[in-house]
């Protein structure tokens, strides 16, 4: 049966790359002695796929992984069994059994929420100034950046792919219609910094349109006339969404609520 696991990634384990996270899950599922399905052949592998690979250095409250099991226990028990053999910094927070007809997570990803924090010890704008500037930056008619590919350089307007932003978590959740998320018994694994400078954003993600938060910050720095230092930002993914409904009336639904 198809299932979807939601997990967090934080602390030192943010330095584990995507392929190693995959190996980690294969071993964790074996440690938990779950009845996972394998592919056929002499080198069988577990049937699993990730929604959207997370880059090295990023933390997350909302990573998704689809796994096929022959049989499984109630979701609560599956979460307990897995967490008992998992590292503290990669933990399962949700387990859903999916209908057999459901599409795999990777194919339906449409957007993701991010929290970008400025790490302490890097020169950056003051908090108030940053917020004013970022607002101005977003209010431009278009945000053009140069995308380099192997063959050519293209001017791209990334503004349509920034769906929303906010400086306070509550405002941000209100703006993306996820106010409910604030009320849940939810504690983020995101790192916090003394300077308190941060911005939430919802960006297009997936195979159709994909915008990385790093690129937004790079464009912002260019706009604000400050140097972009790749090491200055801690990027934290909060949630990954699928687009549901038809073309005229699309809503974004967290991957573990897609049926």
């Amino acid at each position, binding site marked *: 049966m198809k299932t979807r696991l939601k997990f967090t990634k934080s602390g030192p384990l943010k330095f584990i790359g995507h392929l190693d996270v995959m*190996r980690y899950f294969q071993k964790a599922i074996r440690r938990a002695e779950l009845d996972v399905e394998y592919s056929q052949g002499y080198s069988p592998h577990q049937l699993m796929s990730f929604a959207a690979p997370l880059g090295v250095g990023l933390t997350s409250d909302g990573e998704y992984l689809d796994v096929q099991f022959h049989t499984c226990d109630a979701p609560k028990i599956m979460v307990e069994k897995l967490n008992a053999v998992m590292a503290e910094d990669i933990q399962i927070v949700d387990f859903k059994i999916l209908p057999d007809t459901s599409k795999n997570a990777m194919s339906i990803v449409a957007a993701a929420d991010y929290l970008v924090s400025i790490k302490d010890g890097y020169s950056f704008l003051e908090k108030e100034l940053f917020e004013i500037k970022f607002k101005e930056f977003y209010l431009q008619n278009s945000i053009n950046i140069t995308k380099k590919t192997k063959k050519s350089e293209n001017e791209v307007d990334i503004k349509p792919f920034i769906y929303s932003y906010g400086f306070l978590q509550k405002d941000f959740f209100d703006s993306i219609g996820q106010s409910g998320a604030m009320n849940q018994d939810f504690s983020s694994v995101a790192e916090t910094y003394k300077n308190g400078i941060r911005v939430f954003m919802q960006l297009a993600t997936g195979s159709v349109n994909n915008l990385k938060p790093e690129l937004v910050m790079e464009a912002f720095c260019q706009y604000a006339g400050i140097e972009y230092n790749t090491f200055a930002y801690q990027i934290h993914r909060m949630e990954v969404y699928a687009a549901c409904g038809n073309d005229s009336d699309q809503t974004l639904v967290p991957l573990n609520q897609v049926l």
Partner: protein
Amino acid sequence: MKKLALSDEILMTIEKPARYIGNEINIVKKELDKIEIRFCMCFPDVYEIGMSHLGIQILYDMFNRREDTYCERVYSPWVDLDKIMREKKIPLFALESQDPIKEFDFLGITLQYEMCYTNILQILELSQIPIYAKDRSEEDPFVLGGGPCTYNPEPIADFFDFFYIGEGEVIYDELLDLYKEHKKQGGTRREFLEKIAELDGIYVPSFYDIEYKDDLTIASITKNNPHAKDSVKRVVEMNMSETYYPKNPVVPYIKATQDRVVLEIQRGCIRGCRFCQAGMVYRPTRERSVEFLKEYAKSMLKATGHEEISLSSLSSSDYSGLQELVYYLIDEFGTKGVNISLPSLRIDAFALDVMSKVQDVKKSSLTFAPEAGSQRLRDVVNKGLTEEAILKGALEAFQSGWNRVKLYFMMGLPTETEEDIEGIAILSDKIAREYYTIPKDQRNGKVSIVSSTSFFVPKPFTPFQWVRMNTTEEYLSKQHLLRSKMNEQLNRKSIKYNWHEAELSILEGVFARGDRKVSKVIYDAYKAGCLYDSWSEHFKYDLWIKAFEENGLSIAFYTSRERELEEILPWEFIDVGVTKEFLWREYSRAKAEKVTPNCKLGCANCGAKVFNGGVCFDGVLQEVSQ
């Protein structure tokens, strides 16, 4: 976020940051205020290599069973991080607590191969511990070494406070108890070394003086401290089924070289190949019980989630319970997607049956290690494998669908002639011919033979410890000869020939049989930039040559010189069980091309009987002699 020794920025700059963050599955966490002894275990090579080593996993588990001790791990920082740590003066840290190693009580370094010696100096220097033992203060950790290279520790003796010679399971408990007592009494560094110098297996190099003759050979090895022993006896664990073994080994996040459960089925080897140090210094052969191994296989697979289990021993086919164990593993875990890997297996009907069950015949290959190309030379080195057995095994495998064979040989073995070298090419060809005796419609495509040669390096405590090693030039001309002989073979297109670099082997030869004078060369070469010498892309032979020249030492003195029986060898003060008389007798038999039967067929009186157990007392000997 939990404290890491390296900043995010550094970790994001270097290759594979996961090498340095610890926090792996199954690591031991302890509260420091409840700990009396902090021990850092080091494998002086990169993380992926070090994490693959079984010995450290055994000791890590054993030390941490003690409530008063916290054992952590450290590996060599890769060259990218090495540079940053030097620039920023970041002290080397242990993975678990991320605390600087200089704060520890002990730094234990495992010495698995000679080419890691410069990495030891890197570990010490980055840890901000004085490289020479004589320069260390009361605040510095005790630096100790263990593992196979301690059977001649002299080239690195100056860098260590003491060596542990023998198997780790035996006297560490006693040693740590002594340390705790010593710490309470507030004794000096020297006083502690004096106490442990009396223990079997412990060698404190600073308590011995070495005098040299005019010809640079050793005149005498003399104790300069009354606590030191005349000879240091190797310590041996005799009960292999009631001793330490980790049930939940640490599982790395990044792929280690050995990404699998390793089950040591036995220690020692009955075969007595005359070039093999492990086969001599790990005597007597001691088996673990099948029940013990079944239980540990189960727990370790469960605790790690590994997809593969590998049996470890010097010669798996000689393990008496092999069939029972292997069929158990296949039945119990084969259906759960666990691969079973069986290195060092003699190719026979059983091996082929097992291999056909656990491997894809089309993708896997057969491995033979004839070591020498002719029966004459195989008799010299006492390698019991005959051409008949190789050809028979290969044909049976070919008939079962295999078509790939790997062959391992050594070049430069004592008494080697051009015919012996040509024999490598001829044997490779004969195996290919064997394949083509199968009717065409039953063959599985073309046959592929890969023959590899490495250069023979004489090792201490082997019957060849006295022999002259070939020079680089001799090795290269032999290699050249073999390449041309390979090209003369009928099936040359099916044979691929691989060879090793000669320079690395020459240096290994110096370290293997070197004396204390070599330590200055290692120090200078390291200071000149040598590091990760076992990695060919980092090996800087010219810097090594320069270091030898500047110290007035000749490589040829250590390698290309036949030693006399009377010469005092640098490792002479170590008693490994196997006697010098036996080794010399074996050397004489080698020169006479006489084979010596394996331990199960008859006792050759090697000396290992003093340990009172293992194969020497298995009862097989009596039956044979009757």
